[in-house]
C-alpha cells in the first residue's frame, strides 16, 4: 500500500517536472468537429526538432500574432498565408519568421501597415488546407491577398492528414469534402477519452505527453534499432539530394486550384516550392491555365539561397535537415516575397 502510494507520488512529481521544464510540450492538435485536426488555441509551445521554437498560439491557434479576424483599420493591407509546416515555420522564433520580415519590409515599401496572418499547419496538404480556407478562413477573416503555398507532394490524390479534405468524386465530377479522419483509430480513441472526461487531464499530463511522443519516436526510429543499435538495420535517413520527379497533375489538385483562383473574394496567389521534391509539373500547369503564381525557385536554388552557398534548410545546432527553412531560408523568402509583392501591389494600385 505504502509502496503504491510512493510510486504514485513519484509519478506525480515526474509529471510536474516534465511539464514545468517543458521537456514534454503540450499536444498541439485537437479535433474540431468540422475541420479535424487544428492547433489548440492559447497554449505555450516549445519545439525542439531540427530548429528551436518558443512561443504561444493565439485565440485561433495561430502562432506569431494576435490580429483580430476583422481589420481594425481599413487602410491596413492584410495578407493571409495558407500552407503546411513550412509556412507554420515553428523551427525558428516568430521574429525570424518570413512573415515578420514581410510585415517589416512591406510596411516600409507600401507606406501603410501590413499584417500577415499565418494559417500554416504542420502535415497539412493542399486538400485539407484549401477546405479550411474556403469554409473558414475566407468567411471569417478579412484578407486582401491570400498566399497559397504548394509543392509537388500536394498533387498526391490522398491526404493522410487527419483533417477534412477535398477528394475528387468521379461520379459527381467535382471535389467533395471527406471526413475520413473520423474513421481513424486515433480520433476514436481521442473521442472516447473526451467523452469520459479524461482527455483534458491527459493532455495536461507530462507523462501522457511523453507517452505520446514515445509512440511517435518508436514509429519513426524503430524499436529494435534502438535496442540493438548498430547490430540492427537502422531506419534510412532521408538525404536531401536533388532529383527531379515526374508527377502528374491530379484531378483533385487541378479542381482545387481552379476553385481557389476563380472564387470571388481576396486575390489568391500560389507560391510554388521545389523542396524536397523538384518538379516542374506545378509550374507548367500554372502557366497553362494562367494562374497567378510566384515560384520560389527564383530565390532558392533547391537547398541554397540563389547565388550564395547559404543552405536554407540545414540547422547547424542539430546537424539536421528536417526539410524546413532555417533562419537564412526565412530571411530569403521574406525578402523575396516582400519585394515581389510590394512591386506587384504598387503596380496594381497605379493601374487602378
Amino acid at each position, binding site marked *: 500500500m505504502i509502496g503504491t502510494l510512493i510510486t504514485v507520488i513519484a509519478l506525480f512529481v515526474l509529471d510536474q517536472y516534465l511539464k514545468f521544464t517543458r521537456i514534454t510540450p503540450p499536444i498541439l492538435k485537437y479535433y474540431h468537429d468540422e475541420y479535424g485536426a487544428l492547433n489548440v488555441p492559447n497554449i505555450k509551445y516549445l519545439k525542439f526538432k531540427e530548429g528551436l521554437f*518558443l512561443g504561444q498560439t493565439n485565440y485561433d491557434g495561430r502562432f506569431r500574432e494576435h490580429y483580430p479576424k476583422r481589420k481594425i483599420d481599413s487602410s491596413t493591407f492584410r495578407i493571409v498565408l495558407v500552407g503546411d509546416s513550412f509556412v507554420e515555420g515553428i523551427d525558428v522564433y516568430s521574429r525570424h519568421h518570413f512573415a515578420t520580415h514581410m510585415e517589416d519590409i512591406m510596411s516600409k515599401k507600401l507606406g501603410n501597415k501590413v499584417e500577415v496572418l499565418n494559417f500554416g499547419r504542420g502535415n497539412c496538404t493542399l486538400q485539407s488546407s484549401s477546405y479550411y480556407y474556403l469554409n473558414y478562413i475566407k468567411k471569417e477573416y478579412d484578407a486582401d491577398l491570400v498566399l497559397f503555398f504548394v509543392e509537388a507532394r500536394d498533387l498526391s490524390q490522398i491526404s493522410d492528414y487527419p483533417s477534412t479534405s477535398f477528394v475528387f468524386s468521379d461520379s459527381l465530377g467535382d471535389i467533395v469534402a471527406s471526413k475520413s479522419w473520423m474513421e481513424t483509430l486515433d480520433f476514436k480513441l481521442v473521442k472516447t477519452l473526451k467523452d469520459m472526461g479524461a482527455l483534458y487531464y491527459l493532455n495536461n499530463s507530462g507523462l501522457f505527453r*511523453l507517452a505520446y511522443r514515445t509512440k511517435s519516436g518508436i514509429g519513426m526510429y524503430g524499436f529494435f534499432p*534502438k535496442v540493438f543499435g548498430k547490430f540492427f538495420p537502422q531506419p534510412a535517413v532521408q538525404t536531401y539530394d536533388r532529383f527531379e520527379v515526374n508527377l502528374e497533375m491530379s484531378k483533385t489538385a487541378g479542381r482545387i486550384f481552379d476553385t481557389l483562383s476563380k472564387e470571388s473574394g481576396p486575390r489568391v496567389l500560389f507560391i510554388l516550392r521545389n523542396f524536397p521534391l523538384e518538379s516542374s509539373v506545378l509550374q507548367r500547369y500554372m502557366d497553362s491555365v494562367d494562374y497567378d503564381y510566384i515560384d520560389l525557385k527564383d530565390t532558392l536554388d533547391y537547398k541554397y539561397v540563389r547565388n550564395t552557398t547559404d543552405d536554407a534548410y540545414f540547422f547547424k545546432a542539430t546537424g539536421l535537415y528536417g526539410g524546413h527553412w532555417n533562419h537564412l531560408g526565412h530571411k530569403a523568402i521574406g525578402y523575396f516575397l516582400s519585394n515581389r509583392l510590394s512591386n506587384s501591389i504598387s503596380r496594381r494600385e497605379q493601374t487602378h
Partner: protein
Amino acid sequence: MLFNSIVFITFMAIVMPVFYLLKDRQHKKWWILFASYFFYGYWDWRFLGLLIFSSVMDFYLGKAIFSANENRIKKNWLIFSLIANLTILGVFKYYNFFVGSFQEMFSVNLDFLHLNVILPVGISFYTFQSLSYTFDVYRGRMKPEGNLLDYILFVAFFPQLVAGPIERAIDLLPQVKMLKNPGRSGVWDGFLLISLGMFKKVLIGDTIAKYVDHVFTDANYYSSPELLAALLMFAIQIYADFSGYSNIARGCAKLMGVDLVINFRQPYLSHNITDFWRRWHISLSSWLKEYLYIWGLGGNKRSKIRTYVNLLLTMLIGGFWHGANYTFIIWGGIHGLALAVHKWFCELTGNPRVTHGHYLAKMLGGVVTFIVVLFAWLFFRAPDLTTATYFLESFIHWKGSDLAMDLFFITFSYYIVSFFFDFVEHRYGELFMRNLNIVYQLAILMPVWIVIVMYLFSIGKPMPFIYFQF
C-alpha cells in the same frame, strides 16, 4: 557507445549476468576486457589499436623505469613515456590546431599539412591515466604491474574509459586485479548510482542541452535574456551531464566490486574558487595539482609570484587539455587568474583556510564564485571567440525579449530540480536510501526508469556527453 542509450542498457543486460555467472577471476577479467573493447570499439573499432598500443607501451615502460639501475636512465624512460603519450595525444588532438594557428599568425597557406583525423574518444582521459602510472612508478609510489592483462584492463576498464574519472593506478589497479561479485548491497548501490546518473544525464542534461546548443550555435539570432538563459542553463547542463556520467561510471564499477573516485561534490555551493576546484572534476584537478602544479612546477615552494604563475600555468594547461581551441585556453586562464587572486587575497587578509569565515561572507563568496565560474563557462561553451564576444556585447548593450519570462521560468525550474538532487545526493541520499526499505526504494526508482526509457525511445540520437569531445 553512450551510457544514455537503450543499446547501453542492452549491453549491461548481457555483460553483467555473464560476469556474475563466471566463477574464475581470470575469466571475469577477460570477459570485462572483451566488454570494454567492445564498448570502445562500438564507437569506432579503428581506434582500438591505438588504445591497445598505448596500454601495452606504458606497461613495458613502467617495467623499464622500475628496473633501470641509474636515476638518469629512469628519467630517460620517464621522458620517453611522456613524449610518446603526449605525441599520440598531440597528433590527434592538437596538431591541426597548431597548423591552423601558425597559418593565421604568419598568413601562410599550410592546408597541405592538415591531417584528416578524428579525435579518438577518451584519448585525453586514458592518456592521463596511463601517465599517472609511469609517474608513480618513477616516483617510487608503486611497483610496476607484472601482469599485462591486469594493466590493460586498468586502462580499458569501460566504466571510466572514455570520460573518467581519471583514476590513479595506485587506486584502481589493485581493485581491477581483484574483480569480484560485489554482493547484494554492492549491486544495489551500483544500481542506485546508475539510476541517479541516468536521471541527471537524460532528464536534466540532455533536455536542457537542446536549448543551449541552438543558442550557442546561432547566437546572433538571439537577444540578451535568451543568451543569458542559455549560459545559465549551460552551467546546469555541464554539471548534470558530467556528474551524471560520473555517477553512471561509479555505478557500473560498483557492480563489479570496484570503487571509483567521487568526481563532484556540490561544486556550485563553493564559497570561493579554490573550494570550487576541490569540488569540480576532482579527478582532473587532483591530477593536475599533484603531477603538474606540485611535482612539475614546484607548487608553492618557491616565491609568491612563482606560485601565482604556477597556478595560472596549471590552469592554462588544464584548459588546453579540454580542447584545441583558444576558448578553452581562455577558460583555463580565467580560472588560473581567479585562483591566483584568491590566494593573494587569503594571504592579504591572513586567512589561509579555504572555507573559513562568517556565513554572510561565505554567501557573498559563493555568489561571486558562481559569477566567475559562469563567466568562464561562456568561453568553455562558445564555439569560437566571436560567439563569446557577441554574448558579452549583448549583456552590456541589453535588449529585451518577449520570451524572457518564459525562459526565466524554465531556467528556474531546472535550477530548483538540480539543486534539489544535488542536496539530496550529497547530504541525505545515502542516509535516506540506507534507512528506506528496498521495496520503497524500488517504488521510487521504477517510475524514474520508465520515464528515462520512454524518453530515450522518443528521441532520435542520444546526446553525447560533453566530455566525450575531450
